[in-house]
C-alpha cells in the first residue's frame, strides 16, 4: 500500500542547535503512530515542519505522493493536514461555535463572505452543532472558551480538527495536564472520533494514552529517530528505556 505520509531526511536547525537531524518516517493510510521521546527531542519541531510553520533546511515530506516540504501553512492545511497544539490554541474572544467554524472558512466561496443563504447557514449550524454535541458542548455553543475545563478545551480543539475534514491529523500532547481519568476519557474520544478513516500521529508523554491508541511507536532523541516499530517491542527496547528513564531499571 502506498504511504499516506512519507518523510525523508528531514532536517531543521536553529542557530547552532539541530532540532531535527535527517528524520525518516512513513505512515500508511489509516495508520496511527505514537511519537515519543524526551523533552527537547524534536517532536514538536517535527509537527511544526509538517504543518508548515517552519520550513525544513533539508529533506522531503510527501503527502499522498506530493512533496509539501516548505509549503505555506495555509496550503498544507488545504491539502488536508490539521494539527492540535500542546498548549491549546483557541480563539478566546470568539464563541465555541465560531471556534469550530474557523475550520470551515477556507473552503467557502467569495460570495459567502458577505452572504450565506438561510439554508446554507442552517446546514452549517446543524453540522457544527452536531459536532459540538458529540462532545457534549452544544449548550455552551455561544459562550467563550475561557470558562471551559481543560478536557472541554481539548475536546473543542479536537472538534475543530474534525470540522476541517482532515486526512492527516497531528495531535500534540492531547492529554497534557490531565488526570488518569481525564486521560482515559480523551483517549476514548480520540479512538472513537479521530482515528476512523484518518492517518494520525500522536505526540504524548502519557503512556496509557499511547498504548491505548497506537500499535506502532517511533522514538525521537536529540532530533534523531532511535526506534520505530510495534508498540510493545519499542517500549521494551533497552535503548528507549534508557533515553526515557535513565539506565537504571526503574
Amino acid at each position: 500500500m502506498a504511504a499516506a505520509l512519507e518523510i525523508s531526511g528531514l532536517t531543521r536547525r536553529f542557530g547552532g542547535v539541530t532540532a531535527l537531524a535527517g528524520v525518516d518516517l512513513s505512515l500508511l493510510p489509516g495508520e496511527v503512530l505514537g511519537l515519543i521521546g524526551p523533552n527537547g527531542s524534536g517532536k514538536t519541531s517535527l509537527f511544526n515542519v509538517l504543518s508548515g510553520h517552519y520550513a525544513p533546511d533539508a529533506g522531503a515530506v510527501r503527502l499522498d505522493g506530493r512533496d509539501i516540504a516548505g509549503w505555506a501553512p495555509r496550503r498544507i492545511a488545504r491539502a488536508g493536514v490539521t494539527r492540535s497544539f500542546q498548549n491549546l490554541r483557541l480563539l478566546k474572544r470568539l464563541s465555541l461555535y465560531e471556534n469550530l467554524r474557523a475550520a470551515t472558512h477556507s473552503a467557502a466561496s467569495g460570495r459567502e463572505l458577505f452572504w450565506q443563504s438561510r439554508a446554507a447557514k442552517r446546514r452549517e449550524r446543524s453540522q457544527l452543532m452536531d459536532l459540538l454535541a458529540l462532545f457534549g458542548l452544544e449548550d455552551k455553543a455561544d459562550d467563550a472558551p475561557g470558562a471551559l475545563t481543560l478536557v472541554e478545551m481539548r475536546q473543542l480543539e479536537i472538534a475543530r480538527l474534525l470540522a476541517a475534514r482532515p486526512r492527516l491529523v497531528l495531535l500534540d500532547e492531547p492529554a497534557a495536564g490531565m488526570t488518569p481519568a481525564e486521560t482515559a476519557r480523551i483517549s476514548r474520544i480520540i479512538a472513537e472520533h479521530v482515528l476512523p478513516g484518518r492517518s494520525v500521529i500522536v505526540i504524548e508523554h502519557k503512556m496509557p494514552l499511547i498504548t491505548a491508541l497506537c500499535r506502532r511507536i517511533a522514538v525521537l532523541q536529540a532530533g534523531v529517530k532511535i526506534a520505530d516499530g510495534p508498540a510493545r517491542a519499542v517500549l521494551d527496547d533497552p535503548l528507549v528505556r534508557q533515553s526515557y528513564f535513565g539506565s537504571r531499571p526503574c
Partner: protein
Amino acid sequence: MLLDLVQNTVDGLAVGAAYGLLALGFTLIFGVMRRLNIAFGPSIMIGIFAGAWLHAEWSVGMVPVFLAVLAGAVITAAYVERISFAAIRGDAALASMASSFAIWMQLEEAVARVFPGRTYGFPTFDGMPMIEIGPVLLRPEYLVMLVTAAALVAALQWGLAHTRFGLELRTLADRPEAARVSGVNVARVAFLTFLLAAAIGGIAGFLIAAADGQITPKIGLWATIKGLIAMVIGGLGSLRGALIGGLVLGVVEANAQWFLGAAGREMTTYALLFLALVLLPAGLAGRTEAGARAEAERRL
C-alpha cells in the same frame, strides 16, 4: 552643485544629530518596554514651553532655561509613564500606544490653552561667529548640536556598559524574565528609563528650539515624527541604529529641502520611512541572529 551637496550634508548631519537624540529616547523606551511612547514628543514640547515661559517672564539666561526644559520634559514623562504604561497590563502593548496618543491630545490642548498664540520666542545662542571650514559654513548652533549629541551618545554608551543602572536596563531589554529573577526591580528600571529618555529628548528639544529661536505647539508632533522615523530607519530597539537613522534622515532632509523644496522634503521623508519599513523591517542596524531566534520562539 557639489558644494551645495556638501554644505547640505554638513547642515543635515547637525540636524540629524538632534534627530538621533530624539530617536535614542524612543529606542530606550521601546527597547526596555517593547512599547511605543507616542507622547514622547509632546512631553518634550511641555519642557520647551516651560523654558520659553521662564525666559519670557524673567528673561533668565540659557542655563535656567535649559534646566526648565529638562524638568518639564522629565515631569511630563513621569505622568505619561504612570498613566499609559505602568497602569496598562504588560501584554497590551497596543493599548499603551493608543493611550499615549490620548495623553498627547491632552498635552497639546493644555499647551494651546496656556499659550494661545501660534508661535513663541525661544532664546538663542547669540554672539557666536559662523565657523568656516574652507568653502563650507557651519552655524555655531549646529556645532553645539553635533558636539552635544556626540558627547551624550558617548556618555550613554559608557553608562550602559559600566553602571549598574545601565546593565539592569540592558538586561531588561534583553531578557525581561531572566532580569526579574536576577533581582532586577523591573518597574523601577522601566520608570527611570522613561525619565532618562525624556531627559535626552529634552536636551535635543532645547538645542533644536535654540537653533530655531521660535516654537509652536506643533513641535510635539514634529519631535515624535522625526524621532520615530529615525528610529525606524535605524532599526527598532538599536541604540546605534537610532543615531545612524537620525543622521541619515537629517542628510536626506537637508538635501531634499534644497533640491525639491519644503513639500518635496516632506514627501521624501515619508516615502523614506515607508520604504524603510517595507524593505528593511529590521532597520539599517539589522537584527542579531539571537534576536531573530528569540522572536521566532515567541511567535509559536
